[in-house]
């Protein structure tokens, strides 16, 4: 039994190990998730009409020097309803302004949605054609970004915020901001 005859078997063992890893990984991760390359980079500049007061704009200029959260949501987004009660309950207690980005939504639909489920946001801005969201690397809703006082994106949550992700990821990330000078 020479080494060369064993090679295919060795190759198979490596392959099976890879697949076993793949199955394990699949159980704990969402395969579709695309990790953001913007973590640690400056948040894009934006200035968008305020919901309900479209003549007024709100954006990075108004938020300079303060950390803030941006939550991408829409009335057509089913998963957003998952996280919404959590935002309603905990939003005020997070200690940072919560900005809602209404993403590719009709104003009347969004208005009805917020009236029905509540408005946890300090400010809601409207990204009707989705361009500002593209600058943030948004590819679905809901997504949540934590930006620090210097304007650097520190954390991104893809999908609804859950009590676990709030406790294990978002709150520590916010706490870490306070620790910065």
């Amino acid at each position: 039994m020479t080494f060369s005859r064993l090679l295919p078997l060795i190759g198979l063992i490596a392959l099976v190990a890879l697949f076993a890893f793949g199955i394990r990984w699949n159980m704990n991760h969402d395969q579709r998730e695309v990790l953001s390359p913007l973590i640690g980079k400056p948040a894009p500049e934006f200035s968008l009409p305020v919901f309900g007061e479209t003549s007024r704009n709100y954006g990075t200029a108004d938020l300079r020097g303060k950390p803030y959260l941006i939550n991408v949501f829409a009335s057509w987004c089913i998963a957003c309803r998952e996280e919404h009660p959590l935002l309603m309950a905990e939003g005020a207690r997070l200690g940072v302004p919560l900005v809602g980005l209404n993403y590719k939504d009709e104003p009347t639909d969004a208005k009805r949605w917020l009236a029905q489920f509540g408005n946890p946001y300090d400010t809601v801005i409207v990204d009707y054609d989705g361009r500002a969201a593209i600058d943030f690397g948004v590819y679905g809703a809901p997504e949540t970004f934590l930006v620090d006082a210097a304007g650097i994106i520190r954390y991104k949550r893809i999908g609804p915020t859950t009590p676990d992700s709030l406790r294990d990821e978002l709150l520590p990330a916010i706490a870490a901001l306070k620790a910065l000078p």
Partner: protein
Amino acid sequence: MTLLSRVVLATMLAMIMLPAFAVDPLPFKDHAEELRFQELTRELRCLVCQNENLADSHAPLAKDLRLQVFEQMQAGKSDAQIKEWLTDRYSDFVLYDPPLRGGTMLLWFGPFVLLLIGAIVVAMIVRRRSRGLPRIAESTQSMRDEDWA
């Protein structure tokens, strides 16, 4: 599939059902620009329907990104610049063509390494087998089936 990923998937599928389709009549300057657009969008991945390219995907985000690509082409940006703009926002995952860097060395060179090793093995086998071969005259025009079939 976890409940979370199921819900995220449902949302993304909801986006697909919004009326938007891959057919975008865009005002190209000329045929060459149209060709360039088609080839470029074929090399990019749709982030929502992740198994489709940007050229063919129905997703609203794909439509938005196609428009972005078009506008940047009109503004004179090169293919490399447009790709960089996209990867800055969406990471390398948006490219179907894996960039050549440390992590993809095995990917790009692996097959050639295998080919090289294989070629060496083949050469060794052929060398070994061609020894001890009694010479047959070139002119033997035999067409015996055993020799040719």
